[in-house]
């Protein structure tokens, strides 16, 4: 590479990267994403509003459901409930982690993060009203309550009634049709959805226990209602994929998400750098600085220098974004989902896809005088860039189908197809990788050759923007 090319490449890189637009758009985007995710986590971790008050129960079953509900609102019961929730959550997380194949340490860390997050719901007490209490009257008190009122208000002051549950016997006893009826729950205005949900949950559990206890068959068997409840809980699968080499944890989601991650990474890096190349070429031509440049460097040096400069920009984007992706995978101990070799392939296929796109961009940029004029010529390039999005699903679901294999050798889309296949769950036949790379390299070289010819003619052509036929003529002419 001549030193002139290097100067061109350096200027191209600097003038692209050291701009507000680039720094804000490319560098800040991941930062903003991280900040938003962190903010969402932070907000989710915030406690709901503290609520103090009473939950009134009109129990018409005569089975002491009201007392059972009251039992669930005592401080000890609330603590036990919180522990239970935490345990259940930990189990769910364990299962999810197992699917992605996280290690023990990571699971412990996640549990540590969650520990103590589930706060018991206290400050609520139950007021069991007589079964014949007037519902309308009881409701009026709920309507008057302000659920948002801060707790700990003056001692002795009457606590607001924030909810009223009316439980009929039909809720506990099965009707002749074999169904249970529902219970009424009246909530005070401006009630926090989470607290309302938990109040409802406690009442439902009390009712469920009452149902089990009231069932003559259970009574006859002498079973504990808690055992019955445990019996009815649906089991979760501990899924694993069986391969010739042994078992491994199944990650259906990962086998879809990781390939699309690679594809998007490739697409973003290629398109961003390609767009910049188009813009700077048009700028140089439009501002007529082109001829001054051509008095110092040859068109070929200029084009290659510019492409190399933007290649640096693309690689920077690739490194930034893939680094961020890897960092987040490592943070969740999921790095084993990505084969390090795929990062190498990512760079190889980036170079192939970039040189192909960059050739088109340089050719189009040199042929027109304004960005507006480039639109028509850009249409086929943009259409080609849409193809990976369409192909993503079918290819990642069947990475070694005939369809996928054929597309791996179609110039233009093959880098994307190969990236999806390589990062998917199935092993790509070894011969296809170098073969696809070869197709890519040859097509990129052909495109660069044609682009160089168009570039040489195009850079000093002003006036009517050429159509495709004219571009082909330039390739033949030069």
């Amino acid at each position, binding site marked *: 590479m001549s030193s002139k090319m290097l100067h061109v490449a350096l200027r191209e890189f600097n003038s692209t990267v050291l701009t507000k637009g680039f720094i804000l758009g490319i560098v800040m985007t991941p930062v903003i994403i991280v900040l938003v995710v962190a903010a969402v986590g932070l907000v989710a971790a915030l406690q709901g509003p503290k609520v103090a008050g009473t939950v009134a129960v009109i129990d018409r079953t005569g089975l002491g459901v009201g007392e059972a509900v009251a039992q669930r609102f005592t401080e000890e019961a609330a603590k036990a409930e919180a522990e239970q929730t935490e345990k259940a959550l930990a189990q769910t997380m364990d299962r999810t982690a197992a699917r992605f194949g996280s290690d023990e340490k990571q699971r412990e860390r996640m549990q540590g993060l969650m520990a103590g997050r589930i706060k018991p719901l206290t400050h609520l007490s139950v007021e069991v009203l007589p079964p014949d209490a007037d519902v309308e009257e009881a409701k009026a008190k709920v309507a008057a309550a302000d659920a948002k009122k801060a707790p700990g208000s003056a001692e002795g002051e009457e606590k607001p009634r924030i909810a009223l549950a009316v439980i009929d016997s039909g809720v506990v006893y099965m009707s002749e049709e074999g169904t249970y009826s529902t219970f009424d729950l009246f909530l005070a205005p401006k009630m926090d959805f989470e607290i309302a949900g938990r109040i409802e949950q406690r009442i439902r559990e009390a009712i469920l226990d009452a149902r089990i206890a009231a069932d003559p068959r259970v009574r006859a068997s002498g079973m504990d209602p808690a055992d019955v409840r445990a019996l009815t809980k649906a089991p979760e699968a501990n899924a694993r994929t069986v391969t010739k080499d042994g078992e491994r944890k199944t990650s259906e989601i990962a086998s879809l998400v990781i390939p699309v991650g690679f594809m998007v990474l490739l697409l973003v890096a290629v398109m961003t750098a390609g767009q910049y190349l188009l813009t700077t070429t048009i700028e*140089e031509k439009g501002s*007529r*600085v082109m*001829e*001054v440049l051509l*008095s*110092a460097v*040859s068109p070929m040096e200029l084009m290659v220098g510019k492409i190399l400069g933007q290649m640096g920009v693309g690689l920077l984007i690739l490194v930034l974004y893939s680094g961020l992706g890897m960092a987040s995978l490592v943070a969740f101990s999921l790095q084993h989902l990505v084969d390090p070799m795929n990062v190498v392939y990512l760079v190889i296929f980036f170079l192939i896809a970039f040189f192909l796109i960059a050739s088109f961009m340089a050719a189009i940029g040199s042929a027109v005088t304004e960005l507006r004029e480039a639109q028509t010529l850009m249409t086929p390039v943009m259409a080609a860039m849409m193809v990976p999005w369409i192909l993503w699903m079918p290819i990642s679901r069947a990475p070694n189908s005939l369809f996928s294999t054929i597309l791996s050798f179609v110039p233009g889309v093959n880098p994307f197809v190969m990236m999806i296949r390589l990062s998917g769950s199935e092993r790509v036949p070894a011969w296809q990788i170098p073969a696809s790379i070869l197709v890519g390299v040859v097509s990129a070289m052909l495109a660069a050759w044609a682009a160089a010819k168009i570039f040489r003619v195009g850079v000093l052509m002003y006036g009517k923007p050429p159509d495709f036929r004219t571009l082909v003529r330039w390739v033949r002419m030069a």
Partner: protein
Amino acid sequence: MSDAIVIEGLTKTFGPKVAVDDVSLRIPAGTVCGFIGPNGAGKTTTIRMIMSIIFPDRGRIEVLGRSSAIESKDRIGYLPEERGVYRKMRVTNFLTYMARLKGVDSRGLKDKIRVWLDRVGLADAARKRCEELSKGMQQKVQFLAAVLHEPDLLILDEVFSGLDPVNRRLMRQLIDEQHRLGRTIIFSTHNMYEAEQLCDRIFMIHHGRKMLDASLREILARFDPRAVLVEPMSDDGIEAIRAVDGIADVVRGVGAGARNHVYEAKLEEGVEASAALARIAAAVPVRRLELKRVNLEDVFIELVERSGERPPSREELSDAAAAAAAEEATANV
């Protein structure tokens, strides 16, 4: 003296249009050569071919002893007709980039740029972005980009266009200075005044063909109009002038001369101009009497006009265009 540029049989066509037609030319090293010709004559095309930005269909170009400008790009300074700077780039950065592309060592470059900017009155603009400069200022920046690497050959396409009188003078001084440093300078222009002021040699093309290639002195001698401009006190004096010994004919002056009753008295072959002046002064009372001096504008117009009368074989392509150009040139007088 060796030649900075040698061109032989240079031809370039764009589709059906012959932009440059079999032009041969030698530019001796160290000269200032004016490259004149009407609009669309092929000046810029010729310059671009000299610069190897475009390539001729036929013909040979030798630049600074090499077979093409590509091999001696770093020794050539070029100011294209189409001015252009990176709009967002700062002036110093732009000049540094251009100089580096021309192979200038980065050491001392900053100082050099500062000195030059100071010289052309752009010291304050060093940190500015190019887009913040006026057109004339941008042009001066471009001129610096062309000379920073101290080229042996300086090619300036329409260097004076768009400059105000103060900057035109500055530009003349700068070109003159480059000339004194022994550099070969080619500049294309429409402006005959600047060409006369600066050039050792004049080279003119029209319709892609070479019309004139001579030193300024030769041109002045060859196109000497051998006429006296005279403005008699009254129009009756014309007959008296016509009767003066050695005067072949008296015609009304052209252009502004016609309005001011200035007449042109053509001298007969072999007549001493100074003697004729004395005889006219003695014959009639005159308000004004002077020897008509050739100027490049007249030569230019005469040549363009003459080209319109060439045999059709030479004018196959753009007869009408030639006539139009000639008409326009005449109308401008």
